[in-house]
């Protein structure tokens, strides 16, 4: 308790070198704004958000493909809730539904098994998005549908991996002096995965949990380690140095690394995973969905890469609000703009 008080007063009174810290995890974004953490920091500490929300980094052509599939006969597109309201180049899945498309919101990919069994004449396409943390779930789904010989479930994959996009973001002109490493992703990858980047860019990485106190401690550690290319793990109850081998074995049975398209960042080599060729039967046409489309005036790309804060976007809070979102960052509950709009004045 005394330590946290000490950290709080240190961060409020900090008057050293200015620092810019980025987090790349939607749950961190949400916790930072929910705990009002920015109001507790000195002006010398600036927080920015990175590409940590799976919905926000999805490109328009992927959403267009989902909409197209939903309008095909005997096809139903299944998705987590947030994806449904994000617009592609023209329409969102919500709009496709109004045009007669079949869309089903689910809480877990595994919910699909019973749905697909009850309606064998429909092909259920799951909008498989997510990072290292979510991919094992799709592997479990594949295990199960192969075991049960279910033929009418397919995946449209836009699965991403974190390391190479961090490299890309740190190469941009955003003056980042430290990274709050993603908590959930690190559970799978291990904290060592960030070591090459800490060394290459000469900045500290701190792996953090999700409680307000844990984030304050991570910010404190990053300020203290300013200028040092090291990785520190403050989330030791869940994260080890090494990767989770069991999870890797499961995902690499079905998936292999591939280039991936990121909203606002373009195609990044080795930053995603695709279904291996021997499981191509379960793919609903994921390859080559690289085209992006940004609505006029939307700064999602700059927000995701830390070049702009949400309130620096000209549309923020004016034409772009959670009830009428223009960009993906305002739709998703993990999006920077959604969280800033809801929790900041």
């Amino acid at each position: 308790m005394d330590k946290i008080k000490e950290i709080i007063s240190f961060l409020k009174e900090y008057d050293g070198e200015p620092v810019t810290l980025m987090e790349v995890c939607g749950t961190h974004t949400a916790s930072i704004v929910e705990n009002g953490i920015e109001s507790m920091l000195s002006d010398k500490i600036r927080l920015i958000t990175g590409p940590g929300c799976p919905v926000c980094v999805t490109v328009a052509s992927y959403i267009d493909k989902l909409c197209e599939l939903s309008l095909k006969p005997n096809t139903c597109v299944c998705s987590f809730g947030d994806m449904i309201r994000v617009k592609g180049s023209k329409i969102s899945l919500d709009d496709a539904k109004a045009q007669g498309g079949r869309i089903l919101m689910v809480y877990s990919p595994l919910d699909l098994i019973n749905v697909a069994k009850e309606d064998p004449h429909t092909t259920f396409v799951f909008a498989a998005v997510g990072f290292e943390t979510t991919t094992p779930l799709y592997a479990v789904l594949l295990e199960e549908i192969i075991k049960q010989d279910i033929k009418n479930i397919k995946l449209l994959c836009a699965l991403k991996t974190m390391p190479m996009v961090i490299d890309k973001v740190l190469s941009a002109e955003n003056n980042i002096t430290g990274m709050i490493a993603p908590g959930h992703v690190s559970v799978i990858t291990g904290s060592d995965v960030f070591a090459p980047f800490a060394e290459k860019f000469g900045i500290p990485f701190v792996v953090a949990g999700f409680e307000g106190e844990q984030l304050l401690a991570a910010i404190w550690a990053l300020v203290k380690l300013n200028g040092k290319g090291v990785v520190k793990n403050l989330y030791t109850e869940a994260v080890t140095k090494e990767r989770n081998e069991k999870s890797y074995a499961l995902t690499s049975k079905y998936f292999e690394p591939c280039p991936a398209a990121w909203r606002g960042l373009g195609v990044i080599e080795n930053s995603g995973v695709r279904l291996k060729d021997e499981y191509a039967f379960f793919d609903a046409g994921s390859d080559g969905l690289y085209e992006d489309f940004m609505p006029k005036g939307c700064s999602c790309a700059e927000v995701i890469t830390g070049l702009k804060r949400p309130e620096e976007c000209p549309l923020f809070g004016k034409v772009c609000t959670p009830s009428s979102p223009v960009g993906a960052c305002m739709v998703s509950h993990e999006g920077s703009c959604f969280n800033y709009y809801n929790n900041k004045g």
Partner: protein
Amino acid sequence: MKITLAHGSGGQSTKELIEKIFAASYKNDVLDMMEDSAVVNGSAKIAITTDSFVVNPLFFKGGNIGKLAVCGTVNDLLMRGATPKYLTSAFIIEEGADVNELKLIAAAMASAAREAGVIIVAGDTKVIEGNGGIYINTSGVGFIEGEDFASSKCEEDDVIIVSGSMGDHHAAILSHRMGIKNDISSDVAPLCDIVANLKKAGIKVHAMRDVTRGGLGTVLNELADASGKCFNIEENAIPVSSQVKSFVKLLGLNIMHMGNEGKLVCTVAKEDAEKALAIIKSGKYGENAAIIGKVTEGSGVVMETALGGKKKVGILIGEGLPRIC
């Protein structure tokens, strides 16, 4: 026995259904006359409200759609400072609904009405094609003596009080839908006792709202907008039961946007705050009441977080959990 379209025909089956279930449960002199409309005594100033109830599931821990339909409308009348007097009850029933369930729902309505001191003076029953669903509309009339409460009447320095723990109804319904086993029970209840005691003691209540759909965050924003003031609250002061707290954490929900059906928030003059809190705490359903903040010049809702940070509290965006009432 199941409800069929014949029960909505207006003929013999309808008559039997009404007599055996609704009239038998609600029994009172006005309703028993079975006229086309109810004729009742009035008051110089009355409050009128109406609400439709479509909750899924119909039965949940702590209550059912019938109890909800009475409490929801009674509480809406109370929140303007009215004493609830009369209710109407209209059922839209899908064929296939279970008659025994209907009986339980009507009995719960009668029992909640008795507790709230209201009589159900008129009703309607329709049966439609469907799959066993039951929907209820209740309208209510209450008498206002003295000053009414209104959202626009909040004043600077007013103290903000909630009558108990937040999120219980929402968490109970969600637990039921997700098949999660716990002891969380809906807080659905008529808040007559609390409101009557505050009025009797002459507490200067300026505004009062029941914290239903949209949760405390949404209601406080509406109060702030209507009064043109800023609502300052402390996260640590907001009562939440330990079970609901864990539930919310586990599912990543926001307690500020979770609905209740038996809790109110009010703003009272600063000098009456402690007395008002004591009165609410000693009233029925108010034992966990707490002062959560105060009203100042400005706009919106600002929360001091448990960690000591400050943040804006927004209204619920999107649909939240559909069909909780």
